[in-house]
């Protein structure tokens, strides 16, 4: 619980700090920062010379799969994957079995996290019972039990009236409603993005409009209700344009983007690799350019992995039948450091902000800062270390990644939760 981190470049955008200095941690909290701090007796010292010391990264969109799908992932394996990938906290989605639509499941997840987890776990409760989109889940009890947001992620709540009621009902809890914005009808049976590639491959595509119409609806409902609506995994140029406009008009809408929607286009589907299949699908080049721009200008508040573990047998299938989703916890930081920060597409401060204070602020979570008194959740990066993505070495139980074999430079070096190193 006590630790001295020496000589690192302390990068804490939330406090406007970017200095080479030491950080002293006492009893799980940041005690002091400054140059030439000495370790009190018995305190372990970490030499962070040449490394970047950041507020702990928070993945606000993770599927831990427990309870019910332990063959895909567990709280134990998922949080180890998070730690290995530089995340000190994850928010886990409600599409477990049973669905996290009541206090008992939330309690179970939190108990598992206390006993078996190595990073902080913040459950996200379902908006509707059993994710069926017909009746509200018991949001008040779930909020009381510790749910930090509500989402039917994986499914779109198509009933606008019910969704409006959910937004209103959740207002007193201060918990955002997270939208999986994908119109069921426009996206029906689709296996990928609609465009030239879907035409060539003969795969049913969904237009960007499937996302755009729902983002438009959700913005309108956020304006109507005054609720905080967070758009999950934004992927289209139309959606970021509408979100940018809505923010300018003072509507409480926020959004996140995944590493794969920043780095890959639907061209990747030509490989027929089911690890290029997810919802929303990989989009076209212009969409990728638009989300990159929105990430840089702050329209996009945070980066989230949408870590979606699946068993090999669920992915190694005919493309249209393969399960949606890919894992991301163990690759996100590395691929973004190499492909976006190193070439200067975004700067390091922006990346760190979108991974730490961004999600912390919009979910009202502790963390996101290295100011004295803050919980000592810290991610230390090594910008010089080379890496190769080898799924066989994942801590996650799953291997479904489109980044297998990718190489690059810059990666998480140490992950500290409450003053305790949990990775490597």
């Amino acid at each position: 619980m006590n630790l001295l981190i020496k000589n690192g470049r302390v990068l804490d955008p939330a406090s406007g700090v970017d200095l080479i200095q030491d950080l002293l941690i006492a009893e799980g909290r940041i005690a002091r920062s400054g140059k030439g701090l000495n370790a009190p007796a018995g305190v372990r010292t970490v030499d962070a010379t040449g490394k970047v010391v950041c507020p702990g990264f928070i993945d606000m969109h993770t599927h831990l799969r427990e309870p019910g799908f332990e063959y895909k992932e567990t709280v134990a394996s998922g949080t180890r994957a998070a730690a290995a990938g530089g995340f000190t906290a994850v928010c886990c989605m409600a599409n477990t079995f049973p669905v996290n639509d009541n206090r008992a499941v939330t309690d179970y997840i939190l108990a598992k996290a206390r006993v078996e987890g190595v990073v902080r776990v913040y459950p996200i409760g379902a908006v509707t019972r059993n994710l069926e989109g017909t009746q509200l889940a018991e949001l008040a009890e779930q909020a009381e039990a510790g749910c930090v947001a509500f989402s039917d992620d994986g499914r779109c709540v198509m009933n606008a009236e019910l969704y409006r009621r959910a937004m209103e009902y959740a207002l007193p809890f201060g918990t955002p409603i997270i939208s999986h914005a994908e119109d069921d009808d426009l996206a029906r049976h689709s296996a990928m993005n609609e465009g030239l590639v879907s035409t060539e491959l003969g795969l049913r595509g969904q237009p960007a409009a499937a996302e755009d119409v729902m983002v438009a609806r959700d913005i309108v409902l956020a304006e109507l209700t005054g609720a905080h609506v967070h758009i999950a995994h934004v992927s289209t140029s139309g959606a970021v344009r509408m979100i940018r406009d809505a923010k300018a008009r003072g509507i409480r809408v926020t959004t996140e983007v995944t590493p794969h929607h920043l780095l890959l286009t639907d061209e990747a589907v030509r490989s027929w690799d089911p690890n290029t299949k997810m919802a929303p699908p990989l989009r076209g080049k212009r969409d990728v350019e638009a989300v990159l721009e929105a990430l840089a200008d702050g329209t996009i508040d945070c980066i989230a992995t949408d870590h979606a573990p699946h068993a090999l047998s669920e992915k190694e299938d005919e493309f249209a039948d393969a399960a949606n989703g890919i894992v991301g916890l163990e690759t996100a930081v590395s691929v973004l450091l190499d492909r976006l920060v190193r070439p200067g597409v975004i700067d390091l401060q922006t990346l760190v902000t979108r991974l730490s204070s961004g999600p912390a602020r919009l979910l009202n979570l502790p963390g996101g800062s290295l100011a004295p008194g803050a919980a000592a959740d810290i991610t230390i990066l090594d910008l010089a270390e080379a890496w190769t993505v080898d799924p066989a070495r994942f801590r996650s139980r799953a291997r479904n990644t489109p980044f297998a074999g990718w190489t690059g430079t810059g990666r998480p070096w140490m992950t500290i939760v409450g003053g305790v190193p949990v990775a490597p």
Partner: protein
Amino acid sequence: MTWKRKDLLSMQDLEAAEITDVLDTAESMKEIATREIKKVPTLRGKTVVNLFYEASTRTRTSFEIAGKWLSADVINFSASGSSSEKGESFLDTAKNIDAMSPDVVVVRHTASGAPALLARHLRCAVVNAGDGAHEHPTQALLDLLTIREKKGHLEGLNVAIVGDVTHSRVARSNIYGMKKMGITVTVAGPPTLIPPACQELGVKVSHRLEEAIAHADVIMMLRLQHERMKGGFIPSIREYSRVWGLTVARLEHCRPDVLIMHPGPVNRGVELAPEVADSQYSVILDQVTNGVAVRMGVLFLLAGGKTA
């Protein structure tokens, strides 16, 4: 001889020289059909498995006859009555068949990309006999053979492909193949049945039948699936047939030497008037005849036979 591939998955993969190679090989096979004893020993001791996950009579029979005339052992495996009904995955089934050491697996599947999946995992040669709305390369090859036979050449011709292009693997394979052979392709149909970004495939797009077929050397009519009404692609078969059906009256405005093609099975009275299907312009049955020759050529090239 330029053939070096392990598999035949798509026309998009093939180069013009390879297409010509297959057509020439197929042409040399046609004579076998005229013999009293229609059998040559070319593929004796070779095994061809027809792995069909979608109903098909014409294509399966065509591959079966092609294999048998070349003396290969041909086994038909269809999804019903097999372990796929017991929950075995497609890939597991295919790996089991591969473990029995066939030389060629001919696969037909409702899912686009299914043959590519097999090609990645199987040792034997894989032939795509139609996958979803993706490709049907042997159909395009037999169409090209038929056109070359009737017209004497391919380059410079105008072909109109009419109907449900969105859901048609035949259209895609023909577009890729025809473009490579120097044919100008026009696709025509209601906008709902023309796939997104279709022009980027290098074809002209028309939404008027008369315009599309006016200067065509070949008109290829596509089959309309009745379930297209459910997806909102067309309001009714009746209206589709009125607007997009090829009738004798419409044929009068076409070139006098126009060829009418159809991949079958024909919906008589829907996309093709019966009198047109049976007219002097129709080469629909020649397509079927050439289908056997093309599949003989493909099996010969892939199974590594020495002489025809």
